[in-house]
């Protein structure tokens, strides 16, 4: 149902237009019709946005919606609801579902589920290899020409181990100007459940050395240079990986990179109690890595924030540490965590923060209905948040079907108040509005 309303007195932060000013925005029929100071009412509903920041709706390049196959952990509908609460108007659903999203049929199904939920754009990611087995290329062409228009492929969860196959995947992806995104974890250096180092030795847990990530990133960067493909590096977690990406970018490589909220704020000490809520792949690392990632996000070496939202049912996360699946919830807490732990201490200014959540990821994936600029005629995909509002992270209150948030019990400063998707409220005054 089309709505007409005026957002009054919001502080617009629009990275795509390099714009930071307080003004009014009128939305009607799903698009931004007017913006500027002192807009006249003209029968529109007025919404007081004093004290709120208005940003392009956030875009997540890396979400696990678990449907089809693990609806006990999350569905496209519950995940979309979590996304909306987090200020997201577009999410990219990773392919490691059951069955795997390696064909036109599955990606179209996921896209359709997203439309049915109607709370945000669900843009499916296709698998690089059939069944994520790392042996045979998946039908990228079929998936590109399907109704889902998939131009982003990843076996995330699994690493494409075979260098020869990775080269072919990159070359083939060039046919569709598609992006290859490889989960960087050399299987034969891994097999662990936490960062390898002094703490893993004390805790008696097999570790994953930083090298397991770095050797794959180095390899993939070399292959990207060889093939001219577009490479996107997911969930960067080590200082060494940052160095590799920085050097490649300096040479003009077509590479982009993302980092998660947890890798920007949490360190491996949290694993000391053997609570699998803090188990994630790649694992939480050390202080030096966190600092390197923050600096890299600030200077653009890492382009954007992506949540790697990974729901798991409670039973799975209450197991022995080495048996539990890795992954953390992030959609609903991403903004709050970034504002509290990065913006407030001055690591990231607000313009860049909004950029990492909206404009940058939208640009990478080519989602031109999202990420701004917020201008006349642009689709109304927006979020408004109160940067000062305090709220407690209570797992049972999250929209996600799962509860595995590493921020449980924390008080965050910064909360989404409204989310507007194609001109309709999906979240209004902090309450859910159904699609």
């Amino acid at each position: 149902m089309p709505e007409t309303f005026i957002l009054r007195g919001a502080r617009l932060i629009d990275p795509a237009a390099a714009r930071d000013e307080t003004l009014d925005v009128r939305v009607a029929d799903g698009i931004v019709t007017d913006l500027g100071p002192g807009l006249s009412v003209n029968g529109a509903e007025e919404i007081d946005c004093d004290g709120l920041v208005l940003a392009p709706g956030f875009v997540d390049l890396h979400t696990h919606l678990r449907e089809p196959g693990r609806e006990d952990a999350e569905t496209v509908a519950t995940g979309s609801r979590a996304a909306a609460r987090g200020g997201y108007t577009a999410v990219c659903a990773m392919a490691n579902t059951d069955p795997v999203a390696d064909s036109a049929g599955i990606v179209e199904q996921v896209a359709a589920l997203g439309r049915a939920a109607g709370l945000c754009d669900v843009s499916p990611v296709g698998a690089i290899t059939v069944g994520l087995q790392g042996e045979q290329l998946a039908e990228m062409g079929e998936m590109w020409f399907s109704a889902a228009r998939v131009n982003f492929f990843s076996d995330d969860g699994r690493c494409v181990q075979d260098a020869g196959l990775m080269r072919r995947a990159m070359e083939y992806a060039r046919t569709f100007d598609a992006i290859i995104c490889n989960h960087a974890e050399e299987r034969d250096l891994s097999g662990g459940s936490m960062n390898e180092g002094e703490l893993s030795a004390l805790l008696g847990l097999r570790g994953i050395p930083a090298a397991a990530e770095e050797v794959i990133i180095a390899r993939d960067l070399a292959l990207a240079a060889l093939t001219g493909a577009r490479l996107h590096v997911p969930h960067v977690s080590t200082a060494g990986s940052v160095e590799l990406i920085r050097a490649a970018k300096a040479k003009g490589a077509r590479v982009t990179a993302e980092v998660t909220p947890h890798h920007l704020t949490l360190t491996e000490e949290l694993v000391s109690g053997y609570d699998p809520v803090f188990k994630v792949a790649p694992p939480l690392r050390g202080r030096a890595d966190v600092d390197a990632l923050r600096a890299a996000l600030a200077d653009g070496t890492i382009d954007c924030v992506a949540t790697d939202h990974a729901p798991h049912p409670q039973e799975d996360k209450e197991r022995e540490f080495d048996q539990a699946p890795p992954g953390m919830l992030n959609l609903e807490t991403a903004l709050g965590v970034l504002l509290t732990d990065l913006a407030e201490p001055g690591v990231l200014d607000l313009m860049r923060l909004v950029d990492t959540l909206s404009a940058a990821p939208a640009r990478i994936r080519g989602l031109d209905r999202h990420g701004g600029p917020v201008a006349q005629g642009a689709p109304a995909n927006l979020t408004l948040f109160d940067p000062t509002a305090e709220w407690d992270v209570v797992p049972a209150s999250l929209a996600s079907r799962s509860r595995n948030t590493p921020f449980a019990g924390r008080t965050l400063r910064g909360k989404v108040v409204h989310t507007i998707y194609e001109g309709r409220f999906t979240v209004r005054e902090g309450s859910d509005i159904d699609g």
Partner: protein
Amino acid sequence: MIRHLLSIRDLTPDQVERVLHTAAAFQAEGPRITKKYPTLVGKTVCNLFYESSTRTRTSFELAAKRLSADVVNFSRSGSAVEKGESLKDTAQTIEAMGVDAIVVRHASSGAPHRLAHWVSASVINAGDGMHEHPTQALLDLYTIRQHHRSFEGLRVAIVGDVLHSRVARSNVWGLQMMGAEVTLVAPRTLLPPRVETWGVEVTADLDGVLPKADVVYLLRMQLERMKVGFVPSLREFSRLWGVDEQRAALMKDDALIMHPGPMNRGVEITASAADLPRSVITDQVANGIAVRMALLYLMLGGPQATQEPSDA
């Protein structure tokens, strides 16, 4: 006394002394009509063993029974795990039965820590993954104490697969806590990451260490390690880090040979070396019961009535 024994570092040096002292009291007894004491009558000890281990489980079982406690054995190697019963489910089942202590051995490091969140009983770690085996460290300390009045400055060499050994970790920290100096002898592949931060000497030269050590503690070398490249072959391991009679002869007159068992005779130790008078391996086993009796007495012999599970 502490409520849970999950790591040897849960104990202070004074508490370790109390355990050793109490164990000595149990062992110093002359002939009795019965080996039993009535001390823990009415208490129940549950053995929850996810890894089969006749030696340790029997040791705990005898210890509990000699204090007149009732013993319940939950063996979980096999059926129930395959049926999908989680650690938490098992914990809640045991909790519902109302036991006073759970002795748990598990292949996953940290499993006893998680268990302790879900039960009001005392949890005793009988070995978790590669992490710790605190009661083994206690009986090893006790065995050493039978031959040396003080741990202060005592030189202990721990030899072999330290990386995968929970016995090694507990012993390193237990010995250091009591003032001993520890040297680890192994190739780099069998040492944990960043082991230089442990405050130990590290070397691969066993022959250089033998003349100076007061205790040579040999770790079990599992045959599977060879298959994934930790050592090229068991033969090479034996030649460089195994103890035979010739190597034993390099040791000081009063130095001890120890091993947590079971031994791989011919790999880390030869049969003849294991039978030398300086080898106290069988004493270790005998001492295990007294040490575990001491632990159960000190942990369960006090007020326990109002304990709640550590977590909601």
